[in-house]
């Protein structure tokens, strides 16, 4: 024990027996020794066609959907389900052996193998299910190439969507402008020559017509002449630009994938003038197509048109630039990266990290600078940031898709799980990195509505704790059942890497006593004076549990990594600022209107409109204008007395412009009885007595 304590404090092993065995794995991973036999997130299908659905799906998900569709519920479908699940395992085996390709080809290979072994019923089952398979795409496993392939695919999917929309728009405009020129040509003298007219008639019947005579008859164009020279030139210019554009072209289009951030940024800047010219051409074309191009107003505007005239929303319709950086390890690369991101240009940058450990002085442990790239990028402000380990990338597909389709720059930082040296499968190394908080997953969306929603830590294991805790169950030397709850820390993750083996020392024999505590508990207490020795549990190549003492230097690195995680937690929990909270308060007050519920105002005497006030004077004639049905009765009777307002509803323009008789007749003629004649102005009018009687119902 003394020796181990000495090791803990100094990092020096006094005896060679203390050296840890090779090929260690964290004890937590004891069960995952054969990934090919597990049903889990990998392999992933990079879905080919964009049906608006997800760009990637797990093989298990695809198989489950197929089975739900094809296999009947209950025992009848059981055989089919078993066959297909065996096929799924077979595909996983093939991939573990290094086979690759699209789903259909691996399916076919696995199906052939199984059918050869399982006979006709198996072959029939698999063929039936294959007939229902509609998903196609490359299969990818969790390996060193995963991030590059998955992110590229997400980017291509997002770009395909953008391009389809814009190409449709451009093609429609090309067709429309070509129509305009064509119609103009047909109306022109050139379009009425014998030759041009002959072109319009099929060859089989050309002989039946005398085109020279026809040309003579049609020589004089009917109606107004065609396009002005200015307009034709403008349309031709826009059309040429639309046809020659290279942003959304199938062939000879621009390349938008780069290996270096500075080259991508330079390309973006170099193409900006052409982009502006294309936006100008589209705008001119749209105005021309609508017949709304006003030379007096628009000529000057388009003369001064440049990159600065393009609105951000229109800019977002153009392709983004994908940059796949193998690593950003040298200082120049990192500077280029941050400069490119802070430029606001639509660069989607993928940084892959194979190694989390930095190259520092021997004997010291530190995390590589790459692990801080993503958090640094958050500080730049308008960068969409996604960080994830490769094993978790599929679960981050939604933020990934959002990062690719957002208008501004995005950084995707991925730890591949394949550090130098042949360690555990990349899936396990990557998962361990996330589990230990050495490389947590997060997504930062600068455009999210309130501060708290911007940073999301969803998907991290037990995100409210400093470290996730797990139950380790094992059998001790007497084969008795034992269990222990321990946290999974950076010290548990790092033990897989032989380069840091010098920071661990094993207990000689298999016994360790109560003077030890788990590294997680030791770190949480933040004191080392309590005399307990921090240990982590590992399993060796033979699945035996090994307890390892950890030296202080490694624990310091573990603490640094946990502090970085705590900072992330604080950011994610940040309450919305007061500015952001204010509209919320307003929202509560106005919620009935926002929710689309009643806006039918209750009668409010204070808010009564002027017409109600007019109604209060019974001697004056008036019309209940809002109830007028615009039937023309009254205005036809006397247009001097009655008139329509801006809503074509009648009001009394001038009560003195006609007699009391006119008013009473109008009231009688009004179909909805909203004219009230009031009292007569002229007490000497003829037949007043009778008129007053007739007016009574309209009082």
């Amino acid at each position, binding site marked *: 024990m003394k020796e181990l304590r000495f090791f803990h404090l100094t990092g020096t092993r006094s005896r060679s027996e203390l050296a840890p065995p090779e090929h260690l794995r964290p004890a937590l991973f004891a069960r995952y020794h054969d990934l090919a036999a597990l049903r889990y997130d990998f392999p992933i299908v990079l879905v080919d066609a964009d049906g608006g659905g997800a760009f990637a799906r797990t093989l298990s998900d695809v198989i489950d959907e197929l089975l739900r569709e094809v296999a009947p519920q209950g025992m009848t479908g059981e055989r089919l389900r078993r066959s297909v699940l065996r096929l799924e395992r077979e595909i996983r085996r093939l991939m573990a052996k290094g086979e690759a390709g699209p789903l259909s080809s691996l399916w076919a290979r696995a199906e052939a193998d199984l059918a050869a072994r399982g006979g006709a019923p198996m072959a029939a089952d698999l063929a039936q299910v294959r007939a229902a398979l509609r998903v196609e795409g490359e299969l990818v496993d969790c390996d060193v190439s995963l991030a590059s392939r998955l992110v590229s695919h997400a980017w291509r999917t997002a770009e395909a969507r953008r391009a389809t929309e814009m190409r449709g728009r451009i*093609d429609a405009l090309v067709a429309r402008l070509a129509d305009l020129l064509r119609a103009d040509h047909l109306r022109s003298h050139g379009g009425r020559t014998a030759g041009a007219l002959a072109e319009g008639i099929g060859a089989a019947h050309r002989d039946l017509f005398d085109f020279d005579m026809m040309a003579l008859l049609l020589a004089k164009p009917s109606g107004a002449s065609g396009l002005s020279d200015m307009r034709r030139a403008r349309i031709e210019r826009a059309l040429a630009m639309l046809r020659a554009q290279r942003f959304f072209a199938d062939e000879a289009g621009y390349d938008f994938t780069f290996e270096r951030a500075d080259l991508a940024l330079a390309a973006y800047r170099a193409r900006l003038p052409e982009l502006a010219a294309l936006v100008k051409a589209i*705008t001119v074309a749209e105005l021309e197509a609508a017949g709304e191009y006003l030379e007096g107003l628009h000529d000057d505007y388009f003369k001064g048109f440049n990159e600065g005239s393009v609105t951000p929303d229109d800019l977002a319709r153009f392709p983004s630039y994908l940059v796949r950086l193998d690593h950003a390890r040298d200082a120049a690369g990192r500077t280029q990266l941050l400069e490119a991101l802070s430029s606001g240009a639509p660069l989607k940058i993928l940084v892959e990290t194979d190694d989390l450990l930095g190259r520092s002085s021997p004997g010291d442990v530190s995390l590589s600078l790459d692990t801080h790239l993503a958090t640094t990028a958050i500080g730049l402000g308008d960068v969409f940031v996604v960080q994830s380990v490769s094993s978790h990338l599929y679960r981050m597909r939604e933020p990934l898709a959002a990062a690719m389709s957002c208008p501004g720059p995005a950084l995707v930082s991925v730890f591949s799980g394949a550090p130098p040296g042949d360690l555990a499968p990349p899936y396990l190394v990557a998962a361990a990195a996330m589990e230990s908080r050495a490389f947590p997953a997060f997504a930062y969306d600068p455009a999210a509505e309130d501060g708290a929603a911007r940073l999301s830590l969803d998907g991290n294991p037990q995100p409210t704790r400093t470290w996730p805790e797990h139950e380790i169950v094992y059998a001790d030397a007497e084969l008795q059942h034992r269990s222990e709850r321990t946290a999974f820390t950076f010290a548990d993750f790092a033990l897989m890497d032989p380069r840091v083996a010098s920071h661990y020392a094993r207990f000689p024999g298999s016994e360790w006593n109560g003077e030890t505590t788990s590294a997680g508990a030791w770190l949480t207490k933040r004191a080392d004076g309590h005399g307990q020795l921090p240990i982590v549990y590992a399993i060796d190549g033979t699945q035996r549990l090994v307890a390892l003492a950890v030296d202080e230097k490694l624990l310091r690195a573990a603490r640094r990594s946990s502090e970085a995680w705590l900072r992330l937690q604080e950011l994610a929990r940040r309450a919305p600022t007061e500015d952001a909270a204010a509209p919320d308060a307003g929202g509560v007050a106005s919620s009935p209107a926002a929710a689309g519920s009643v806006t039918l105002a209750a009668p409010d005497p204070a808010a009564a409109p002027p017409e109600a006030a007019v109604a209060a004077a019974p001697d004056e004639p008036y019309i209940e204008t809002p109830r007028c049905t615009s039937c023309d009765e009254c205005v036809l009777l006397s247009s001097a007395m009655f008139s329509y307002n801006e809503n074509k509803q009648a009001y009394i323009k001038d009560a003195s412009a006609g007699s009391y008789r006119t008013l009473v007749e109008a009231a009688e*003629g009004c179909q909805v009885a909203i004219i009230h004649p009031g009292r007569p102005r002229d007490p000497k009018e003829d037949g007043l007595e009778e008129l007053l009687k007739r007016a009574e119902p309209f009082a």
Partner: protein
Amino acid sequence: MTLDLTQCLLQTAQEPRDLADYQSGVPRWCSGCGDNAILTAVQRLCRDEQLAPEKTVFVSGIGCSSRLPHYMHTYGFHGLHGRALPLAEGVKMSRPDLHVFVSTGDGDCLSIGAAHWIHALRYNMDLTVLLHDNRIYGLTKKQVSPTSPLGTKSNTTPKGSYLQPLNPLTVTLGVQNVSFVAQAVDWIPDLLSEIIAAAYRHKGLSFVRIVQRCPEFQPGAFDPWVLDPKRTLILRNGLAMSPALAKIYTNQRDHDASDIHKAREIASAEDPIPVGILYQDGSVPCYEDLRHAGVRRTPEQVRHGLEAEFDKFTIWPDGVPAGDAP
């Protein structure tokens, strides 16, 4: 579908249009006709939404109602009897960028055009359909229509009509894919305008039945409702109503327009007349979207497609091989 920039330039260049910019000619309807109120309401909508006249189409069939396109200073299509809806669907299919309105009557829509009505509802294309329902054939001088009340005396039924009237609202609410059903009355113009505006804003087929007076052939038929505001039931669900009107029409109830069962219950009631949005479901897909309407084809594409079709039936003259034919 234009760039932001184009939108901006179009808006700055546009002079605001007022009601008169949408008027055309003097309506030839009888004096006092409820059609006038409907005409004014759609003109108000066009002005309030500043609809471009060249991007707006009013389609109609035959009947008094169907004269409406003549009085709109927009595009119009006065079609065949009962065929307003298929015509409008054709317009929308080839030009989904246009605002398409349909004016149809109780005979045009519910009798000769009934089959088109049912299927137009099912297709759910983005149209605003105004059913001018005056319960009588007016243009042909008074015959019963499918909505005439039992016992209506007319030129075809001098002893009174024999059949119960058809309820256009309950039928509409029974058709699959129905997405917007409302009822208005011509004698409350503000609400009529509001309801037509809501129908216009709805994406999908919005069906508005407008109960309409015919002072010439059904004089006074609606007087009990016109003169007694209590006999109009206002459905409260988002329509704005001025305080002055709210004072008059006090018979109101809350209604959740997403509840189709409640909507059917309300639709079955004849007295008081329910006014407002009975049912609305914005999630029903539109046929033109499902079929990607409005794809522009170049003359070359059209020619190629036509040639391919004709080639199937062409009898080639001797000695001209199929491939070399012009």
